[in-house]
Structures are given as structure tokens and as C-alpha cells.
């Protein structure tokens, strides 16, 4: 089919978008964000592993320790996002696939827009929770420490713990998926 109005995306761009869609889908199988905590008594480390729909890791132990500083309990119930995020991401994968099939550049701009806005909201949301947990400490806690906010990525120290925050495999897949949506922008720039 000849692209008369010159607004259809090229085959490569379409494949790139299909790839992006698959990666988004696959990302749901992997953790998106991970926090590791080390202390002299925990040389093996404690971890919080965040998937789009569940939490894994040694949460019970972390919660037991957290009550000393008055931090609220981590559980899947404390994060409403975990009940719907997986559907939003799955929706994004389908949307990307639709854009790939429709091959319309305007839709591509829209998709990239959603990616960017979604990404910003996501990072902000994560920061919001880190801030809430790190600063909204029970004033009656036995151990009073200065409120703190662990970084989204990087190292932090509080009490006897050193924490390391990382993006999980899922988040990296999403970044690659996002880059794949940018390929059509460059590939089809003259059209």
C-alpha cells in the first residue's frame, strides 16, 4: 500500500513499536523497583522487591524492625497502586500495539506523551511513598530518628542501616520500550 499522505509510519517503526509493546508486557513479570538494606546484624541483607502488583522480600522482618522507629507497616494493602497498576501497564502495552498497527504519527505523539507523563507520575508516586514512610514516623516510637527520604535510586544511611535503591529489570524494560517508541520519531522524521 502506498502511503499517499506521507503520514503512515515505516515498517521498521511499526516493528519497533511492536517490540516496545512486547517489552511492556514482559516487564510485568519482573520487579520494577528494589530496595536492599544492610546492617551489621544483617550482612546477608534484607530486601523489598516491588512488582507492579505485589511486594516480595523479607517484609515481615523489615516491618518488625521498622516499628522501633515508628515507621508504618509495609504490606500490599498499604499501596493501592498495586491493585490497578498492572492493568494500566497492560493497557499501555495494548495501546502501543494499536499505534503500531494504525501506524499514525499523531497517535505516536500521543503515545510518547502518555509515556512521559506516566513516567513522571510514576517516579513522583514512588518518591511520595518514600517520603511518607520516611517522614511520617510515629512520635511514640522507642527510637526517635531524624525523618529521612531514601532516594529513588542510590544509597542512603539511617540508624544502623545502609540502603541501596535500584530500578528493577521491569523498569529497565520499560525504559527500553520507551526508547523503542522514539525510533519512529527519528526514522520517519522526513515524512
Amino acid at each position, binding site marked *: 500500500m502506498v502511503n499517499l499522505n506521507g503520514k503512515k509510519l515505516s515498517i521498521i517503526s511499526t516493528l519497533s513499536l511492536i517490540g516496545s509493546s512486547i517489552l511492556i508486557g514482559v516487564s510485568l513479570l519482573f520487579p520494577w523497583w528494589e530496595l536492599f538494606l544492610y546492617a551489621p546484624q544483617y550482612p546477608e541483607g534484607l530486601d523489598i522487591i516491588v512488582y507492579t502488583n505485589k511486594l516480595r522480600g*523479607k517484609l*515481615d*522482618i523489615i516491618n*518488625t*524492625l521498622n516499628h*522501633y522507629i515508628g515507621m508504618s507497616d509495609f504490606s500490599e494493602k498499604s499501596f493501592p497502586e498495586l491493585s490497578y497498576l498492572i492493568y494500566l501497564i497492560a493497557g499501555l502495552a495494548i495501546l502501543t500495539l494499536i499505534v503500531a498497527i494504525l501506524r499514525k504519527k499523531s497517535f505516536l505523539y500521543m503515545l510518547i506523551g502518555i509515556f512521559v507523563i506516566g513516567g513522571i507520575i510514576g517516579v513522583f508516586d514512588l518518591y511520595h511513598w518514600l517520603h511518607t514512610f520516611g517522614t511520617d514516623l510515629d512520635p511514640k516510637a*522507642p*527510637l526517635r530518628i531524624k525523618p529521612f527520604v531514601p532516594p529513588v535510586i542510590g544509597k542512603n544511611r539511617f540508624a544502623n542501616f545502609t540502603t541501596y535503591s535500584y530500578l528493577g529489570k521491569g523498569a529497565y524494560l520499560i525504559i527500553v520500550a520507551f526508547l523503542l517508541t522514539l525510533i519512529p520519531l527519528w526514522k520517519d522524521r522526513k515524512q
Partner: protein
Amino acid sequence: MKKKLIPIISGLVFGLVVAVIIFADISPGSKTKTAASNSTTTTSNGDAEKVYVPLGKKDDYYLMASGGHSGQLFVYGVPSMRLIRTVPIFSPDSATGYGYDAASKKMLGGYTWGDFHHPALSETNGDYDGKYLFATDVANSRAAVMDLKTFTTKDIIKVPNTSGPHCAAFVTPNTEYLFLPTRFATPLGQKYASLDNYSKDYYGVMSALTFDKKNEKLNIAYQVALPPWSYDLSDAGKKSSDGWGVITTYNTEEATTTMEINASQADRDYIVLFNWKELAQEVKDGKYTNVDGQKMIFPEKENQGIYLVPVAKSPHGVDVTPDGKYFIASGKLAPAMTVFSFEKAFKAIKDKDFSGERNGIPVLNYKSVMEREVNPENALGPLHTQFDNKGFAYTTMFISSEIVKWNYKTGEVVDRVPVQYSPGHAAAAEGDTASPDGHWLVSLNKLAKDNFLSVGPSHPETMQLIDLDGPKMRVIDTVPANPEPHYAQMIKADKIHTINVYPEDKNNKDAVYKTTDTRIVRNGNTVDVYGIAMRSRFVFDSKAKRPDTIEVNQGDHVRIHLTNIDRDEDITHGFAINNYDLNMEVQPGETKTLDFVADKAGTFPLYCTNFCSALHQEMNGYFLVKPNN
């Protein structure tokens, strides 16, 4: 001038002579070094490196040493020889609460001590399988089983008709049976009978125990009413001799007093050689007598599968070689080890090559069964033999205080090393199995004397680590041990798979795993507390005004079920009630019960006894007992 010098010089000489006489120690004793430093043991830096296990590394072997009359098991690491843990088996232990909580209290059966002589690791195909460890109690005729996943005692059985199962436990190659021969002869049921009727009324009953793995319970399969002799050490046949067992016996004189003299008169005592498969068949065929509910085989009636092999007098150890072809008896009072051949014994049995009988048990001809006598020059008091992977035997010499290395196939003595002092048993790496490892031998010495800093008249025992890798044995470490390891077994560490946290047990009605499920339930005069321990609080009733308080009435029957919900490695909680003489430990995920009558009215603080956290000191509450009327 000269005249003046004479009195000066003579004065100096006189003074010197007086000083020498008064202060100088010229007695021969001054040249005596400490006895231990007289040993020929040499040390080098390489030895220190061999036993040094730095933080982050672990020992290669577990050494499971019986704790003798402490009733406990001592768990050591080899080669570091560090004591890792003491596990209570036959005696209560306030630190762990063993004998205080309901389950272990019931298991101990009211006994306050035990005399744990011989550990026996469970075996598969004649090799340690790292699953269970069996123990016997000479003091109160009990046998126990410990689970190696948790290193806790799972069951204790009181064995009737027998008094002092010393030489056991020994397991058969696939842990089919655990045999308990007995040191003391008594009348059946330990009833009264005059010692004048010793030969007629007394028996040395051996028991065959089975272990029900699924329910972790010990059972008595059958018993054998052996003659009223003292049975000492024992071992199970393996490979070609699988199905057979050997036991040394002394006091075949049937002396009833001053045994030291009277039981040492005969030139020969016996090894009891028996076929446990045949005995099991006899029981199956109904050829037994019911004695107070036990299936008792009387050899004089059911004369099958039991034989006597004459042996140098008053033997101690009898050890089956790894290939299963020979059994080696140690003379105790004789200077020699005697190697007997199973094959020759089987032939003698087949040919009915008997020299006579005792109590209806055929006696085999010594010459027909004996393979060779090994008599190392000036060695005295052989007690017990272990093996390595190269065909060598290692025999402890109690009286000449040494270990003798020899080849059991040729009788050649290869090496000897002094130990400090008087070894009883030795434990080589997997040294009593069908496939010993070599590398290490631990000599369990009965006397420490001057080996360690003195703590007064009571001395520790001594364990010495001997390196077997070189051409010569080398004693490379000497460590103290609490009284008193009699025997130990050394098992490769990677065979044991422990757990750190008890898994949630949905079927345990006493367990609660959530704070919100805690509650105190009263039913008449019985109060059940379903509580939890966590860092750093107790919760007995989460809805109560004070969740960590238990209030009962005087005379109530109280059961405190406590679950440690800190399911985190090494976070142990203790639970004690002040002035109520109660304490126990709950390991991560574990549930235990204190079961008692609140007979004392008053106010009793309760607290965590095992340091658990920074706020351990705050982990307490109250047990309030309202007085009657």
C-alpha cells in the same frame, strides 16, 4: 694485707655456701617439666593454620560427643575443635527451657539426669545420612532420638527389663534397628531377687528398638534375655556381614561383688555374635515369651542366631572393619587386639564347630574364628578402634596413653603417638562407617591433669585432634571438654541440613502467628493463653488494656502457649515467670507451652530471658494471681 683478705674471702665463701644450701633448688624434681610438656608432641606453625577457621569459614566436620553424666550432647566443629552448642537430651536445661515446657517435661519423664554414653548417627547403606542421632542413658535405661534439622530431642523411650544400656546405641546399616545391650544384669522387671540366685534369676537384657520416622517415635521391637553378664561395646556388621551384630561381654564369671577382682578371673570372656535378621524372624514366628508386654527371646529356649566367640579377658571395644569382613576386639586388661573373621565365624557356625555352650548358647572355637592377634610392644589397655580410608585401624591405649595406628589386614603396627592422658574412645572422620574419610582423629582423653589453666581439683576432660594426613600421626590441638564425652562420631558437615526458622504449622492448635489472633481463654479452672513473642514485647491478648499481662485466680490450671513470630534467623525469645521457677525458650516460628498450676497468689513479673533486641530489657509484663477468698 694478706691477713685481712683471709677473713673476707672465707666470709664470702661461707655466705655463698649458705646461700646455695638455702635458696638453690638442687633436688632432682627441679628438672621435671610439667608432664604434658614431656610429650614427644611437636608443634609447628602449619599445625596452627590447619585448625584455624576464620570468621566467614566453617568447620568441615561436626563432632557429636556424648556428654556422659551431664546427660547432654556436645557439638564440636572439626578441625577448629570449637564447642558450638550443648544440646540437652536426658537432663533438664534451664537455658533452653528443656524439661520446663510441657512437651519436653513429659518426654523427660520426671528424671533429673541421665548418663549419655554413646551417640549413634542414623545410617543409610552403612554411612551416616545426617538425619537423626540416637542416644542411650545408662543411668535410667532410656533411649532418645534427636532430629538433626533442629538439633532437638524428639522422643525418649524408657526401656523396661534392662538396667544401664551402656554399649549402645548402635544402629544397623540402614537404621533398621537400634540395639541396646546392657551393662548391668538385673531380674526381669527389676524385681527383687537375692544376689545368691544371680545366675538363675538375673539377665542381661538386650533391646532392639525401631524408629518410626514419620511420627518421630521410638518403639521396642523385641528383647533378648542374655545371660547375666555385663555387656560392653558393640557394633553392627556391614556389607558381607550385614544382618549380624557383635557385643563384647565381661563378668562371664557371674560375680556379684567386688567385680574389679571377681570379674577379672577367667582368661577368656566372650563376644556375643548374633544375627538380628534371624531374631526378627523368630519374633515374627511367635517364638518369644511375653514379659510385661515385651516380646522376650530366651536364647536357651529359642536357640537360634546367637553365638559366643571366646576373647581375651574383659574386652572393651569391638569394632567392625569398614569392609565388613572382620571385627576387632580390644583386650582392656590384655595387651593385644584380636582380629576375628566374620567369614570364618560363618563357616564355624555352619560346621557346628563349637567348643561347648554357655546358658544354651553355642561357643565357637577361638582358633576357628580368630584371624590374628596384634600385640604392639609395651602397648597396654586397648579400648576402642576407629578406621581411615586407607585400610588402617587406630586403637586407643588407655593404660599406655597412646594411639596405635596399624594395618588390620596384615597386623603391622605403623605408627604410635602419645596422648595426654589415657584415651577412652577415639572418633575418626566417619571412622565407624562403611566408608571412613581419614584426615582427622579425635582422641577422647579421660585425664587432663596439667593440660589447662587450673580450676581447682575438678578437671575438664581433654580432646586432642590428630592429623592423619601425613605419614606420621600428629597431635595438633588439645582442647578441654566438660564431663564427660565417652564416645563421639564425626560427620561431614555437608550431610546435615538444618533449618533456621520453624515453618508455620497450620495444624498446631496452640500456635498463633498474628498478634490479632492472640487471646486468653478461660474454661472452668483452666486458662489457656495463646500468645506471641516478638521484638520487643509479649502479646497475650491484643484487645486487652494491657496486652502483656496475664491475670488468673489462685489454683487455676494455666497453659501458656507462646509462639515466636519473629521469623528471623537467630531471634530467640525466652519466657520466664519471676519467682515461679519457670523458663523456656521459643525459637523463631516455634510454639511451646508452659503448663502449670498457679498455686502461689501474688504479683509475678514475666520477662524475656534470651537477649533479643535493643529493647530486650523492656520485654516484660506481669503474671497476676488473685488470691482465693
